[in-house]
């Protein structure tokens, strides 16, 4: 066995290295946030937030149609993804202690790991090819599939946190199982489920790859569910690839708007979740 001071030195060294790793991971986050805030703030203006893009090459216009498109697609995919996800979560938590439940849990984890561009191809073949046009609805389906496993697993986790005494109390009063789940368990776990939904929304709000092959992007405001549409992440990508200074500036502006939406959702969720888990323990 080595001398004590050598071992102590190694211990200190390991602590220092760990700290260094943490700092190393925080640098890029800081870099991104500072850059987006600095460059993006310069692009923000009333016109930028309220008008659709101008003709390519002219430094006018804004991202209003992209913001509108993002809101629409978030709304639609939530409408599809949340009922599916919540029901899956209910099944996993309340009935899922069997081989089928384990299989579904496993495949839902696998679904989480599926590349989003592959989900995009799926929506392209199933909807864009079938309906004959790039469309808002195809994008919503793709994003709903990305939401599904996230909502399902967070719902399951929050239902499992509900004390079984609550279930037993309801059952003892003669309330049926389904009614207990819907009225007692779900409402006790409500804030946890909402947390999961908001996390999933934050995740899909920034998704870009599946939108390339579904909603395509557009210069105009929303015209219909079966028509191409714009969205913030897609607009950022297209702007970044244009060879004009103003386009890059607008790209940063759009990035600032997007990051504000996504990060505020995340921060809100963490703060909401903090009180809740303490409450149940």
């Amino acid at each position, binding site marked *: 066995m080595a001398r004590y001071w050598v071992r102590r030195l190694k211990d200190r060294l390991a*602590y220092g290295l760990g700290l260094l790793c943490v700092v190393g991971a925080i640098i890029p986050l800081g870099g991104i946030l500072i850059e987006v805030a600095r460059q993006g703030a310069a692009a923000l203006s009333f016109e930028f937030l309220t008008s659709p893009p101008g003709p390519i090459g002219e430094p006018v216009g804004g991202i209003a149609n992209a913001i509108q498109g993002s809101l629409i697609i978030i709304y639609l995919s939530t409408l599809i993804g949340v009922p599916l996800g919540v029901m899956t979560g209910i099944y996993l938590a309340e009935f899922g202690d069997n081989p089928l439940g384990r299989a579904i849990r496993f495949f839902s984890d696998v*679904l989480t790991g599926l*590349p989003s561009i592959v989900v995009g191809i799926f929506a392209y073949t199933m909807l864009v*090819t079938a309906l004959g046009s790039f469309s808002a609805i195809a994008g919503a389906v793709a994003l709903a599939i990305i939401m599904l496993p996230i909502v399902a697993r967070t719902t399951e986790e929050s239902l499992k946190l509900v004390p079984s005494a609550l279930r037993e109390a309801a059952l003892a009063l003669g309330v049926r199982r389904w009614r207990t789940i819907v009225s007692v368990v779900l409402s006790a776990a409500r804030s946890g489920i909402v947390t999961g939904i908001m996390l999933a929304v934050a995740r899909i709000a920034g998704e870009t*790859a599946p939108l*390339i092959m579904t909603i*395509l992007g557009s210069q105009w405001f929303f015209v219909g569910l079966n028509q191409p549409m714009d969205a913030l992440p897609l607009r950022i990508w297209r702007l970044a690839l244009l060879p004009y200074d103003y386009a890059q500036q607008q790209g940063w502006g759009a990035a600032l708007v997007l990051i504000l939406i996504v*990060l505020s959702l995340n921060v809100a969720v963490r703060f909401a979740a903090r009180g809740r888990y303490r409450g149940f323990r």
Partner: protein
Amino acid sequence: MAFRRRGWSVSMDAAFRVLAIVFACSVIFVLFLVALSLLGPALPILERFGPRFLTGVDWIPVVGREAYGALPYVLGTIVTSGIALLVGVPLSLGIAIFLAEMAPSVIRTPVSFIIELLAAVPSVIYGLWGLFVLRFWIRDYVEAPLSTYLGFLPVFQGTPFGLDILTGGVILAIMIVPTVSSVSREVLMAVPNGQREAAYSLGATRWEVVRVAVLAYARSGLVGAVILGLGRAVGETMAVTMVIGNAVGAAAIPTSLFKGGQTMASLIANEFNEADPVSLHPSALIGVGLILFVFALAINILARILVQRVLKTRGGVVE
């Protein structure tokens, strides 16, 4: 009356259960549909080129002299993900060990919060930052010195430009850190305290406890976390697309780190909207998507199995 009402209610129970099962099975159904929706459109390319689609390097989407080979992009994905693991994994394990075993709780909570925020930043914003900021850092502070002092090595051939395989790998490394570090932290925290207490009672220092008692015990779970990160790196699209330089065909074979490359995902993102629907080009792109799907599926299944194995032993009950 009471009897009938009770019967109705019992059947509602059964109906609710069936409804839940049907909705839950949608997960498996979707996965199955995804596989089908890739396989169908990819069939023409697989029939026409067979195994040459996997081993070929040409990529000529011109009707009349079409040729499609996915090898450069498969290699591009492997190399960029490899760089991501090489850079990202030591960093992530360092963070996980620091947060789970060493840091005082005053630091622990805010730091894990910040690292999770890193996961929330959309991939296209990483791409934007990579394209306009990181690219120049890499070119001036990493590639320039490497090129000057180690330029004779084959992997450092070419002029440092910043939009290349190295930058693609580095941005992936940054993106997998939150995944790998948070899963590893969970795995480390699942190691039963008895392990630690036994080592401490023998007089081990904190680092020795981690090395001997914790890391050894959590090994397969940590491997799972790393593979999960690999899964993320393999499927990541936008950030890589924006910094990798988008080479096509034989030029995309990753022979040097300072060369433009292409991954499977970036190829699809770049070319999907430009593919001529009467050619085999869309089919070829979806074929590449199919390869990517198989990669991601295999990686994820392996990772989940490994992580599950450790998390199941929580509380010291080894199955």
